[in-house]
Structure formats: structure tokens, C-alpha cells
């Protein structure tokens, strides 16, 4: 598994992401700059980390989504290469056209920073093989704009084609209601592209890989990726 993490001006979770990838794959990922034009040869996985790229100017992820390196990321995804976007990375994937829909301001207008349970919707993808289907995992969230919105036809397609990756739930696995931290349509926390080789999610699995910081439920995602290529 050869991974590359893209760093934009204002990214701030790239270190956490690199640590999680190193732990699962045994190798440090390449760190690429937004102004680069090419991915290292043989890259299996491209990761867009969290943060506040370009200070969230214009719209979250809007300017990063049009950065020079994104053409290479789009080409990588079109070849079937794996792409993971977390938090601001998810916003960038939506703005770049790699995933449908948009992340709007949280419905309660507050930045939410807390532990959050998620339901793993399917475990037959490169990102989730090390989880069980329907498993409840506990990771953390930290975002002000995570309210997933798309038109009805897109939501219907995501649901019909099994492209919802994770949903917000409570500790008992009950989806929605008070467990939805941001007002996302259908309690969506993460979605796949049509071919399920691109995943975007708001929560931070990369921060839950060490018992020292509260849990290891995030490891499954990186271990799945490590065994995928």
C-alpha cells in the first residue's frame, strides 16, 4: 500500500493522518503539496486530510478543490485508484466533483467537537473490510460545516445504490435523532463514489488509533486500506 497525503495551505490533520497510515501499513506516506502536478508513481491511495484549507474562504474546500494537484487526483480516481477525504478532505471531494452533494453549515450553527458513534453501512469495500456490517464504532468529530445536503434525486441514488458509507448513530447503534450532530440528510456521515473507490467522511478515524487517546475504533479503516492494495 503506497499512500500519498495532500497538504493544502491550512490543512492541519496531515500529521495525524500520516501516523495512522504508518501504523497500519508500516510505511510513511508521501506528503504532497497542493501545487504539485503529479502523484508519485505507484500510488495506491490518495488522502485529503482535515483542516481549514485556504481558511475556508469562499466555501469550505472550494479553492482546494480546484488546486493543481486535484487534476492528478481526479485522474487517479478515474483509473479506479483509492481516494480518502476526511472532514475538510470530504468537503474538498464534494467541491472537486469527485463526490456528489455539498457540506453545509451545521443546522444548529455550532462547531461540534466531540466523540461520535457511527454505523458502518457495508463492509465489502476497500475502506471497511476490517469492520462488521452494521457495526457501531466510536470516533470523533470536529467540524462547523458537516451538514450533508444533496438534491432528492442524488440522495435517492446514494441510498438505492448503497453508496452511504457511515451514518451518525448513538452508542446503541440507533441512527439519527439526537445522534445526528449537524442536520445531515438521512444522517449521512460519509459516502462513496459510484465505484466505491472514493470515500469522503466528516468524522476523524485517524484520531482513534491509540488507546492513549480514547479508543482504537478508527484503526479498522486504515487496516482495511492496508490490506486492499
Amino acid at each position, binding site marked *: 500500500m503506497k499512500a500519498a497525503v495532500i497538504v493544502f495551505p491550512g490543512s492541519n490533520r496531515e500529521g495525524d493522518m500520516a501516523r495512522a497510515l504508518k501504523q497500519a501499513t508500516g510505511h510513511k506516506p508521501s506528503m504532497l503539496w497542493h501545487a504539485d502536478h503529479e502523484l508519485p508513481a505507484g500510488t495506491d491511495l490518495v488522502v485529503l486530510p482535515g483542516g481549514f484549507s485556504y481558511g475556508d474562504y*469562499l*466555501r469550505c474546500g*472550494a*479553492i482546494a478543490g*480546484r488546486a493543481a494537484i486535484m487534476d492528478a487526483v481526479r485522474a487517479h480516481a478515474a483509473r479506479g485508484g483509492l481516494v480518502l477525504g476526511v472532514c475538510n478532505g470530504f468537503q474538498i471531494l464534494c*467541491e472537486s466533483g469527485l463526490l*456528489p*452533494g*455539498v457540506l*453545509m*453549515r*451545521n*443546522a*444548529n*450553527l455550532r462547531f461540534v467537537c466531540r466523540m461520535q458513534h457511527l454505523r458502518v453501512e457495508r463492509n465489502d469495500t476497500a475502506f471497511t473490510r476490517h469492520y462488521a456490517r452494521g457495526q457501531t464504532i466510536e470516533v470523533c468529530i470536529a467540524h462547523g460545516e458537516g*451538514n450533508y*445536503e*444533496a*438534491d432528492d434525486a442524488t440522495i435517492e441514488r446514494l441510498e438505492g445504490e448503497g453508496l452511504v458509507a457511515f451514518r451518525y448513530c448513538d452508542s446503541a447503534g440507533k441512527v439519527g435523532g439526537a445522534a445526528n450532530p449537524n*442536520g445531515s440528510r438521512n444522517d449521512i456521515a460519509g459516502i462513496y463514489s459510484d465505484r466505491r473507490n472514493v470515500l469522503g467522511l466528516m468524522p476523524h478515524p485517524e484520531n482513534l488509533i491509540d488507546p492513549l487517546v480514547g479508543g482504537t475504533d478508527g484503526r479498522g479503516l486504515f487496516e482495511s486500506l492496508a490490506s486492499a492494495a
Partner: protein
Amino acid sequence: MKARVVVTLKSGILDPQGKAIEGALKSLGVEGVASVRQGKVFDIELAGADAKLARAQLQTACEKLLANTVIENYKIDV
């Protein structure tokens, strides 16, 4: 040449910021506010003098960056 681009949320898209502003106006006692929707204004200086060309350039700018057409509409004034 000066141009102005106004980007607004499409109707039906929930606008929590607009709602908060609406609530604040009401709590300030500003009367007659039925609803508020927040948008963005871009004042753009264009190098050329051809209005038709400018409009085409701004349309490209809107489609490529200034508006997210999933949720936003735009209006160009040259």
C-alpha cells in the same frame, strides 16, 4: 469595466445563517422582517471593455468557482 456577481442559495436549501440573522433582527426589535437569506457579492474589475465578452468570462468564473451550482444561483451585472 466593473461588474458585480451576486451568489444566492437556491430556494428550498436551508440557510441556517440567514435564519440566525432573521432571529437577531427580530430580537433587536426590527419590525416587518418576514425572512432572511444570506448570499455573497463579488465586485470584479475587468480588464476589457466588451460587455458581452465580460459576461461570458464571468459566467465561466461562476460555474468554475464563485458558485456551487448544487446549492447556489448566480446573477451577473456588467
